[in-house]
């Protein structure tokens, strides 16, 4: 028996709608996130364009994009970017270079922990940016004071995490290794160090945020160049669009750093057998 044409057609439509619904459900997350983002940008643009809110206050996406385009042709902007990147990288690299070995040592030696523990705890209790006025007295308003504040910001979380990573090494593994008379070096390199790597990465990610904070605050506080300097100046002269560009660049820097560390961590963790 043949199916009437109109029924077949409606069934076809039904199937197509079901497929669309399924497509939406599969990508619901992306759809909603993208939709919201788009809506926010549109409302923002409309608010700026309609004159309901003075663009001086909130700027607008197109203005921000234009400012970014203009800035990218400005040589001073690239100098600022370079200065901030240098501060971040030197301070952060220094923090990793100090904190990882020191954290391992402190984790391994109880006495060393007793000796430096009070200082680490005190520094950990205070937002290191509080020390900026002192750091500026000591190192001036140039690039070094920012490197130091970035260093101080990042060194503590990496140190604390590395130390607790060593502390939580699997005691059973160490006992087994000992009973097979593994040397201390062997135990360290094949049990303690691999077990600590995830902790180091957690600390490094946290430290990266602290380091970026140090760059921003250091440059807002007192500086002659850098992205923070750029947004502080732009803020003082009500160039809201440039402030947004700067804030977005800091956002991008944060996201990129975390993504890089994630990728690096996956690489380091590839040897680990998947659970089950």
């Amino acid at each position, binding site marked *: 028996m043949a199916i009437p044409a109109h029924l077949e057609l409606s069934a076809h439509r039904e199937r197509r709608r079901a497929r669309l619904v399924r497509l939406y459900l599969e990508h*619901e*997350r992306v759809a*909603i*996130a993208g*939709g*919201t*983002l788009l809506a926010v940008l549109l409302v923002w643009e409309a608010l700026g364009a309609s004159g309901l809110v003075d663009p*001086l*206050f909130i700027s607008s996406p197109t203005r921000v994009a234009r400012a970014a385009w203009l800035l990218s042709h400005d040589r001073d902007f690239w100098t600022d970017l370079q200065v901030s990147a240098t501060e971040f990288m030197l301070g952060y690299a220094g923090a990793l270079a100090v904190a990882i070995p020191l954290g391992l040592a402190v984790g391994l030696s*109880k*006495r060393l922990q*007793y*000796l*430096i*523990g*009070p*200082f680490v705890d*005190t520094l950990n*209790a*205070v*937002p290191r*940016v*509080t*020390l*900026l*006025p*002192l750091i*500026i*007295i*000591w190192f001036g308003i140039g690039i070094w004071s920012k490197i130091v504040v970035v260093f101080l910001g990042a060194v503590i979380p990496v140190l604390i995490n590395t130390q607790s990573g060593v502390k939580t090494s699997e005691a059973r593994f160490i006992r087994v290794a000992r009973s097979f008379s593994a040397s201390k070096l062997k135990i360290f390199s094949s049990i303690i160090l691999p077990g600590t790597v995830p902790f180091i990465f957690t600390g490094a990610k946290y430290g990266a*945020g602290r380091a*970026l*904070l140090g*760059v*921003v*605050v250091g440059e*807002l*506080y007192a500086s002659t160049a850098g992205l*923070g300097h750029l*947004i*502080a100046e*732009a*803020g*003082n002269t*009500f160039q*809201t669009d440039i*402030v*947004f560009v*700067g*804030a977005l660049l*800091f*956002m991008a820097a*944060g*996201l990129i750093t*975390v993504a890089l560390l994630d990728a690096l961590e996956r690489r380091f963790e590839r040897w680990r057998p998947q659970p089950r």
Partner: protein
Amino acid sequence: MRASSSQAQTSAAVRLYFAHERAILGTLMVLLVLIAWEGLERGWWADALRPLLGDSAERFKLKPIFISSPTLIAAAAFRMFFVTGEIWRDLAWSSAGYVLGLGLAIVIGVPFGLAGGWYRRLSYAVEPFLAALNATPQVAFLPLIVIWVGTGLGQRILIIFLLAVLPLAINAHAAVRTTDPRLIKVAGSFGASDWRLFRTIILPSSIPFLLAGLRLAVGRGMIGVVVGEIYGSAAGLGAMINQAGARFQTDKVFVGVLTIVAAGVILVEIVQRVERRVDIWRTPA
């Protein structure tokens, strides 16, 4: 086997040392650093090394404006707390901004995070914003905040809010997500209303996460106290530190920093106490 009495005595001393090793070593190290510091300012080391190094020993004597010294700082602290009492006003001023900013962060961040954890679609909508904002050093928005609300109390409240709200919202979100789904299913099959579900299952199991978020937020808010007062605040600890720094009154800077350290330690300790207390009723898994 019998130990002689002198051996017994030394071993008792050694035992005593080992029992308190942590406190002994820690105190020694702190004392050592304090003495080294004091000596740098007073020129003890310069005097001691002069016969060896001659005039270049002067390098070991530093000016008080540069590093101050523990006794100078203690004297300044005594003056500021008990003689002039000037620091109380700064403390009160900073605390007002801090309490309001943190309070606002709790009132907005926690319900928002809980809702985001419960309603999947809401979570999809706001997740990208939260993630992006969390990766940003939020103080980069300070110049914007100044444009919006000026440099008064509002600006300080807003920056503290912005710094503190993310850990609260993110932890509240995670708390709902990690609630035991079996409990929710059971309650659902017994016809519990959403409100009852929330009150008796989700909220209690969220408390540890919320407190952990609060602990983070307390620390972040401290950054806001200092950073929020960069732009010429009338009073406050951060403003006091900045002004003292600009005038090279290093001892006052240290007093301010140490006051903030003390406040931070006390606040975190309070949250931790509450965390421990709340955890008591929980049956160990």
